[in-house]
């Protein structure tokens, strides 16, 4: 992904480039504002986006302040004690969308206990890191999954009628 301002031959002035990403950024030391390739991939092509229909939803979680800031909604269906299907929708920055997407990949197919043990650090590590100032965005995914798992437990405890949301 080469970009970086290219040189226009006539003026020697830094001019527009065509490629999307400044390559020199990858060598920047310390926390930077920008995201790595894998994060951008999960941001531009998020996995497991969407909703599960009520009839297929065994657990649902919504996290984030109702009036401001990022928000995440997450749906799971459970088969044989494992997360069979997982879907999410998110309002937030690229970090929030990418970490939610990666979380769904990590959780898919896991037993419920395994899913509960996924941490923010697991998600960030799987993404190859996110900018230091964006770490707070990753909290939403794991919290959303925990909310959905708790919802599943509550439904099971009350021998859940499938009234979702």
């Amino acid at each position, binding site marked *: 992904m080469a970009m970086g301002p290219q040189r226009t031959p006539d003026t020697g002035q830094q001019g527009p480039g065509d490629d999307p*990403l400044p390559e020199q950024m990858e060598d920047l030391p310390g926390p930077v504002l920008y995201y790595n390739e894998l994060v951008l991939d999960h941001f531009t092509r998020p996995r497991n*986006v969407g909703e599960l229909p009520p009839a297929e939803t065994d657990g649902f979680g919504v996290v984030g302040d109702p009036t401001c800031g990022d*928000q995440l909604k997450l749906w799971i269906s459970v088969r044989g004690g494992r997360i069979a299907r997982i879907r999410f929708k998110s309002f937030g920055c690229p970090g929030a969308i990418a970490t939610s997407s990666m979380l769904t990949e990590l959780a898919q197919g896991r037993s419920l206990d395994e899913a509960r043990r996924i941490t923010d650090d697991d998600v960030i590590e799987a993404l190859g890191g996110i900018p230091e100032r964006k770490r707070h965005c990753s909290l939403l995914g794991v919290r959303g999954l925990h909310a959905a798992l708790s919802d599943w437990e509550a439904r099971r405890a009350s021998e859940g009628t499938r009234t979702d949301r």
Partner: protein
Amino acid sequence: MIYLDHNATTPLDPRVLEAMLPYLREAWGNPSSPYRFGQQARAAVERARSRVAECLGCRADEVLFTGSGTEADNLALRGVLRARRARGRHVVTSAIEHPAVLRTCAALEADGCRIDYVPVGRDGVVDLATVEGMLGPDTVLLSVMHANNETGVLQPITELAALARSRGVLLHVDAVQTAGKLPGRLADLGADLVSLSAHKLHGPKGVGALYVRKGTPLDPLITGGEHERGLRAGTENVAGIVGLAEALALACAAAESEAIRQAELRDRLERDLLAAIPGARVNGAAAPRVPNTTNLAFPGVDGESVVVALDLRGICCSTGSACSTGDPEPSHVLLAMGLDPRDAQSSVRLSLGRETRDEDIATVLHALVEVVGQLRAVSSL
């Protein structure tokens, strides 16, 4: 790359670079040295001062060179407050100022000054009557920006200047976003102090200027030699100062035609976006604005997500001031205008410039429609 973030910074005009190079290559003497080689650099600095003064409509000895627009703001606020300590320690400013002013006011407050922040209406404009009510016998300084960096909304500076004068209060205007963008001379606004920055008008980074009306009390922040009439010590950034003067002269010469051209492109972009993206709104549309700036809310999608998605398509824009990028808090400017926090979080700033072309507008329109559509498909709102 299509660069629509000119309120953050601008490309250096090749003519400005040409004007600067001799003072980096050959005429590198110290302007304070008495021999001819030093005085060659002195002459360049003073010629630059005269050119800046001509563009601003003031005398050459009313122009001080600084290291940035932020430093000019700091010098104006702290310098006046120090010089006028005996008279009072009250400052009135607006809630939508750039952090260069707002955080300086916060620091002054910690030092025992009293600061009042004038709110703005939904249109983003300060209310004159509210300002008037805040001015008291101990008010020393009123500081209001000419145009807001995030929305481009213009403030009623001429009226504020008349008000300040009638109450014996000094007026500082941060004109970083209007210098070289609007026809007319900044000293004619009637302010006592005006800040500007070279890199916002196709000049180099690291140099700014402060207009100080003759007789305005001002203490230095940086002490040392007698540079800048003892008000800003430090060997002059000769090439930078020459660059600032050249850039300002070029910008002022083109201001009238560019204002018309960029306003036409900006207005077309807004019209087409509002028609193509349901729910989109222009923040500050009801007020007069600088011609190059538009701030748009796309409810349901996060502004930073729009910025990054556009970046991946080779388009540079911003969520607000470059200083606040990476900050999870929504824009203090948009919140002050009464926007719902989620709408503020959903806002993006596009700022056009001299090298923005007609065809760029169609490209950006197409990209934005696609990006907002894609992000809305992911959105939980």
